[in-house]
């Protein structure tokens, strides 16, 4: 029998309280809602549309930002320059500022009064109240997750590997796409998932930029304030389930690849 010392027991008990704190509200939410009600919600066109909008706005924003965030992460991982710490501070800024304030900042940037808003308006695009505006608000608050994860990924690659590739005649572009990017992809994908997830759950910034069309967090809030807890609950449960399915699937994809590699190693050994 394994002996457990009393200190470990105290630590486990304290940890269990935190776990309970996370599980209890979610379990309460699930248990208080009849299954039929959840099924009925899946037929609610407004709910389904809002879930699709939330998923596509967050995914689209994440994908678009990745095109710029990954090169920035590489530059930050591989170069030392004056003001680098300042740049790193700027990248973390969206995490620490209140999200309603972030929403106000994004709104100020994309409204028709701003230069950017006017330019977009000239080509017939109005970000305020548009899915693109929602994507921007979501991306603004969640981009640090992708940049920081990708930067950690690139930093973890020994510079010797990139030098070895150059020594074999590869130019910088080829080294980036054949060595750096493939070796950092797990970090990048992990950051991508985190950014996507953080975008999905955003409420404060999005509600200021676009109340309509409604993303699911806004719809939950609206159902709660207009009809009460009973009506908000099934929407919340459905959204949580959809998010869970996505994250589990994406995590599985990431881990499956690494397990395959590990398995190969064990067999060959």
């Amino acid at each position, binding site marked *: 029998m394994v002996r457990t010392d009393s200190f470990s027991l105290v630590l486990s008990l304290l940890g269990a309280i935190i776990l309970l704190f996370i599980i209890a509200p979610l379990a309460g939410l699930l248990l208080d809602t009849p299954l039929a009600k959840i099924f009925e919600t899946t037929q609610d066109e407004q709910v389904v549309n809002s879930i699709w909008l939330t998923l596509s706005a967050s995914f689209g924003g994440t994908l678009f930002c990745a095109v710029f965030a990954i090169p920035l992460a590489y530059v930050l991982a591989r170069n030392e320059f004056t003001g680098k710490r300042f740049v790193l501070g700027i990248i973390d800024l969206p995490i620490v500022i209140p999200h309603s304030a972030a929403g106000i900042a994004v709104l100020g940037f994309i409204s028709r009064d701003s230069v950017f808003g006017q330019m977009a308006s000239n080509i017939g695009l109005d970000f305020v109240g548009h899915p693109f505006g929602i994507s921007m608000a979501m991306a603004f608050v969640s981009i640090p997750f992708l940049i920081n994860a990708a930067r950690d990924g690139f930093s973890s690659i*020994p510079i*010797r*590997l990139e*030098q*070895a*590739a*150059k*020594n*074999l*005649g*590869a*130019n910088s572009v080829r080294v980036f796409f*054949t*060595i750096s990017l*493939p*070796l950092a992809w797990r970090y990048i994908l992990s950051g991508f998932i985190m950014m996507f997830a953080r975008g999905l759950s955003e409420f404060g910034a999005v509600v200021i930029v676009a109340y309509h069309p409604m993303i699911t967090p806004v719809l939950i809030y609206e159902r709660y304030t207009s009809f009460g807890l009973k009506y908000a609950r099934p929407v919340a449960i459905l959204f949580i389930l959809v998010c869970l399915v996505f994250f589990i699937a994406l995590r599985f994809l990431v881990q499956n690849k690494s397990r395959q*590699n590990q398995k*190969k*190693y064990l067999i*060959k*050994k």
Partner: protein
Amino acid sequence: MLELRNISLLFPEFSLKDVNLSIHEGEYYVILGLSGAGKSLLLECIAGMQQPNTGQVFLDGEDITRKKIQDRNVGYVFQNHAVFPHLNVFNNIAYSLRHKFPKEIIRQKVIKAAELVSIDHLLDRQPNTLSGGESQRVALARTLIRDPKCLLLDEPFSSLDVQLRDDLRALLRKLNRMGRTIIHVTHDYEEAISLAQKIAVFQDGKLIQQGDPFEVFANPVSEFVARFRGIRNFFKSKMISHNQTIIKNVIPLDIPIQEKISEGFIMFNSTDVKISKEKPTGKISNLFKGQITDIIPNFKGNEISIASEINLTSFIDHPELKILQLKIGDEVWASINPERIKFLPII
């Protein structure tokens, strides 16, 4: 073929100072020095991973000092091999050929390179399943397939056990015989002497001696070089007559008769330092009284350090140590036969 002119590379804690080297085509050139002497930095200057502060690197008469790494065509096998962990052995070896040759040609070239270094049975393996020796051969094949003008090897024996060292030594000799110019960096004297056609000894970022390995070690210019050969008794000295020299300006020592009176170094083997507990009788040259400060046994015998007017090292076998019953702290007499002392004048 490869020439380094006045190369200096300055770092806050370390510098390469004014290095001049000339390596000819087909030569096996070994750069020998302790860890941190700047040997690897010199290779990096040749390969383009470091830009020297001053000086130039010439390859086949062309100044390549400012050329990009990828445009130099010198092959570098890193100490840790730097095999790409996400590519299998085949793709590691084929890396430099991709998009340059048709697939079938690449396959043939990869197999040929793999056969040359005896890893053709490993082509499907992932790098994390390879041993140190196998991984090194992958790095070697990957470099050789590009047919570089010269091959730079950074401590290639460091991660190999004895058996694999012999195999690699044979392989490197074979590559050199095939006409490949090799520049090999090491801290191991025996490794250097077993392969080098030319040798350069590095100390604290400076090239202190270079040339034919036999010449270099037969005539070391400093205690540092002498110690590489295992010579523990090496002293700076000044001749005061044709057969006598003084160490530290006061300690006289008899040596074989020399033509010229000059300054230089004297050296003698540890086995030529004879020790006894009692003072030898009769006329004995070069006799010193001292105290044993250390006895280091190895499989051949015992290295005995003696603190005297000059610090001497003697070597005696195990039975002799038993007979003499020596231990640390004992007072002993040490003598050196003048005929066994070599005087190296400073040229």
